[in-house]
């Protein structure tokens, strides 16, 4: 038997080393072949913008994007700027839909390709009208930045940012109108994360929350505080429905915990009984 094994080892080692040494193509194939979990996507935009041939201000673009909310949600360069990130030679080809950097007045249309509802409300707002008529009103990047775009929250409305263009009075009224609903959205989001950590799938609730939040924030872009106050009840109602579902899930989780804790106690008890019973038999 030992001899069979030694022969087997010799055959396998010989076959491995002969393949490894003499067949370069084969060697390359297996040496460099990527494995499922280690695959890295080719992205010509990032490769080029991270390299030294790029100007300093363009190099920072990828760094800023990697810290953004877009990055966390897999929104890539070509999703906004067009082109083909998988093909370096055609990455900036207009045939592949490359747009490049939009002009200042084109930014709302540029972002509005995805944020459709927000674009509509923005264009009807004082901000949008100012941009369309004078070309100098605030656009999306004025408040949200261009590449380092963070998850939007109520803190975006602050004295420092708003007073760059006008007084803070109206913005403050708007912030107060948004406050309760925004807080409720934040709390529900946190609870959904807690539920997820407990192993409950919350994809559907997350989607519901996201769509309610998107609708609410789109409304905010009208910068009409009266309209926001008027519609707040509708949103609160929608959020309450999600909240009820979350509470039900937590109640269910507690029941499961208690139920399995009860079964744990039963089996621990049975173990003790069996152990004591076996001791009497030994005697």
């Amino acid at each position, binding site marked *: 038997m030992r001899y069979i094994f030694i022969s087997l080892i010799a055959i396998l080692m010989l076959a*491995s080393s002969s393949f490894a040494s003499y067949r370069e193509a084969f060697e390359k194939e297996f040496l460099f072949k990527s494995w499922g979990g280690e695959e890295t996507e080719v992205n010509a935009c990032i490769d080029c913008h991270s390299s030294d041939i790029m100007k300093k201000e363009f190099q920072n673009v990828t760094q800023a994007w990697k810290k953004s909310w877009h990055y966390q949600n897999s929104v890539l360069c070509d999703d906004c700027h067009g082109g083909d990130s998988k093909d370096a030679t055609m990455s900036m080809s207009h045939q592949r839909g490359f747009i490049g950097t939009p002009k200042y007045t084109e930014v709302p249309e540029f972002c509005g390709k995805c944020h459709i509802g927000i674009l509509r409300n923005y264009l009807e707002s004082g901000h949008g009208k100012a941009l369309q008529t004078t070309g100098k009103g605030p656009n999306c990047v004025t408040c949200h930045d261009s590449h380092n775009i963070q998850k939007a929250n109520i803190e975006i409305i602050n004295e420092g940012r708003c007073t760059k263009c006008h007084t803070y009075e109206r913005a403050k009224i708007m912030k107060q109108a948004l406050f309760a609903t925004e807080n409720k959205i934040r709390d529900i989001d946190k609870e959904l994360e807690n539920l997820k*950590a407990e192993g*409950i799938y919350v*994809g559907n609730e997350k989607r519901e929350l996201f769509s309610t939040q998107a609708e609410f924030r789109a409304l905010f872009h009208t910068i009409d505080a009266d309209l926001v106050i008027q519609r707040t009840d509708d949103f609160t109602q929608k959020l309450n429905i999600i909240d009820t579902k979350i509470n039900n899930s937590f109640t269910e989780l507690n029941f499961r*915990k208690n139920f399995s804790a009860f079964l744990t106690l039963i089996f621990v008890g049975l*173990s003790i009984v069996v152990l004591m019973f076996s001791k009497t038999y030994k005697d």
Partner: protein
Amino acid sequence: MWQKIKDGFEERAGLQSLIRTKLKDYKVPGGINIFYTLGIVAVIAYVIQALTGYFLLIYYIPHPDHAFKSVQDIMNVAPFGWLPRTLHIVVSNLMVIVIILHLISIFVMLSYKKPRELTWIAGVCLFFITLVFCLSGYLLPWSQRSFWATTIVTNIPTAFPVIGDYVANILRGGDNISGATLSRFFALHVAFLPPIFLLITGFHMFLVRRLELSTPPFSTSAEKSPERYPFYPHFFLKQVFMIMVFFSLVFFMITFMPTFFLPEAANTPADPLKTPFNIKPEWYFLAPYQLFKIIPNKFFGISLQVLLALIFLLWPYLDTKEEKNILKRPLLIIFFILALTVWFSLTLWGRHS
């Protein structure tokens, strides 16, 4: 009336004599320890897997569009559906631990020695089949973890020259993980593996019964007086005790660590276009996975793994010395500790690499 029914049944089935001959007259060696009960604990774990599996089958839909949702429905919509699913997950992992401990104890007590070589081989085959059960099982929820861990594992056969891609294609039903892979793994998990498994388990248990339990090598009392005790109640109660301890552990984990074997990626629907960061196979595949990663030549890597598996399987025929006390075999102790350390190190390395 009740006595009449009992007597009538006894007259026809002869249960009393069956219990007497199979439980009371069947003798086990004195001084056997709780490690001897790990086999029956593993069998009970399989029974739990089969029973909970039947319940899961009622609601599970093996289709990429419905698999994830059907599993979520089992967890959150079906009454008490969470119980069989959580049991299935926790027991599958604990079962692998029990089998590993069982194999370790058999190795340390050198119980695989003649005439028990075939019992060892059947046991190792059962361990391998268990791993295939686990592999085929964790694709079924069609989560991110399922999808990408299976991608990694089904890539492994491609390291074989000439037939590698062909084998991988047979496993996946195409070039990539798809609905065809799900169907194949589902069929493997619920239809192909169970009868093979039952057959080998039957053979394993037949041999255990036929050759009887081995005498513990460390027990001095057994050496002095090779006394034998009836299986019932002497050993039977030990087994029941360990089964109760196993159940306690299972429910303890479900109560206090419900997500221990269920990371976030297992709770996210599969997305073939989005490779998650740091996706890893299950813990029991981490050592071979890490070994593949550190050996640059994949064919050499897989050759080595096949060889190691063969050595493991046919170990009783390689270790031909007659000494049955491991304490008198220092070289074997060193080999055993070294093998275990390498396995632990590779697993930890794979987990944190």
